[in-house]
């Protein structure tokens, strides 16, 4: 975009800060957009044009430190959020959720819709997704240094957690053996192991049979799931039971976006990262 007419980098960066309702220190933000491949290509171009050695060395710093800070802060903050919201979810599940939220596709999608693609200084165009991811985390790192951990926490919460709306837990977290996991969870809570029984069945001898298998613990039903064959129905029932146990059903309370009352949580995130 910088090659087209009407482009003022400084004004664009100021507008970027205002658009996100955040106060950035502009130097940190400008370093956050500088990538290492850009520095190399600029130095090579200047050397090719035959300038002196002094002007060849640019006075620009890289965004790698800021990117690491941003990535570690956002990971720890998101882990804390999920531990607070879903206390029963095991560490692997939380790790899978955080990994999905910080994955390349999601972060590059968010970054493109926030006009970060226009502002990054990079060798190739269109900007590849891993560069976009690094730049976005560098922006978060710059925000951390300029505004403090609380505001950065609110920023991370506002932009990453809405990406989870409408998504099911097991679309994000691949579980190979839900029945085994369910038995482990139930033994942790000292409930007897589940007994599967067929609750309903339709069209048994046709091409599309439908079985509803219910899981009973001590003769009380905990979950019921549909499936095409008996095995598929049992697995689905185990998944439904796990969703209920972890509190990640479709009808759970939506995420709480109100203003945080304590700053302790964000400070813990900074100290642990």
């Amino acid at each position, binding site marked *: 975009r910088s090659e087209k007419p009407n482009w003022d980098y400084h004004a*664009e960066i100021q507008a970027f800060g205002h658009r996100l309702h955040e106060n950035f220190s502009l130097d940190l933000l400008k370093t956050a957009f500088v990538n290492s491949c850009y520095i190399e290509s600029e130095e090579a171009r200047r050397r090719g044009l035959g300038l002196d050695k002094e002007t060849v060395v640019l006075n620009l710093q890289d965004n790698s430190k800021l990117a690491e800070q941003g990535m570690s802060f956002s990971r720890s903050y998101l882990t804390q959020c999920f531990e607070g919201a879903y206390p029963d979810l095991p560490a692997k599940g939380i790790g899978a959720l955080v990994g999905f939220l910080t994955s390349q596709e999601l972060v590059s999608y968010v970054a493109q819709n926030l006009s970060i693609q226009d502002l990054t200084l990079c060798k190739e165009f269109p900007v590849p997704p891993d560069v976009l991811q690094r730049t976005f985390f560098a922006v978060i790192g710059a925000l951390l240094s300029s505004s403090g951990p609380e505001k950065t926490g609110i920023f991370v919460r506002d932009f990453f957690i809405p990406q989870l709306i409408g998504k099911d837990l097991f679309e994000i977290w691949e579980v190979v053996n839900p029945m085994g996991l369910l038995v482990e969870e139930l033994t942790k809570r000292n409930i007897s192991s589940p007994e599967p029984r067929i609750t309903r069945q*339709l069209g048994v001898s046709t091409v599309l049979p439908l079985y509803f298998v219910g899981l009973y613990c001590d003769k009380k039903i905990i979950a019921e799931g549909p499936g095409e064959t008996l095995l598929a129905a049992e697995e689905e029932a185990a998944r439904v039971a796990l969703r209920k146990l972890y509190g990640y059903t479709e009808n759970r309370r939506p995420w709480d976006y109100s203003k945080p009352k304590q700053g302790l949580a964000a400070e813990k995130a900074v100290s642990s990262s």
Partner: protein
Amino acid sequence: RYVRQLQRLQLLFSPTAADARGARQFVEEVALDFARQHPDVVLYVSPRPGPAPLLLAEYLNGTVREELIASKTSEEIAQLATKLAGQSGLDIIRIRKPFHTDNPSVQGQWHPLTNKPSALTVRGPRLQPQ
């Protein structure tokens, strides 16, 4: 949080043509106030000896919208600019339905097996008519 979807507004007009009078008035009087009220939109003003005055709006998802502002007064141009500033970059097409829900059912969708007695495989004793 709310993120304004308008990225930048480019005002292209010609300093001498007659139909760009509203655009010139807008630039002289209203443009500074508009820029101060909308600090997250970058406003570029470029006089060029081109054909007709244009207002180019670029949105965060990449769509570019052009509006002709020939023979419009400066208040109309200001109104147009605020309208563009409130829009998102989605295509302006007919919306098929004015409603949309992500949760079409609250208690679970009906399927042919709801409200049938608990299990089709279980047969209870026949209730005697009393």
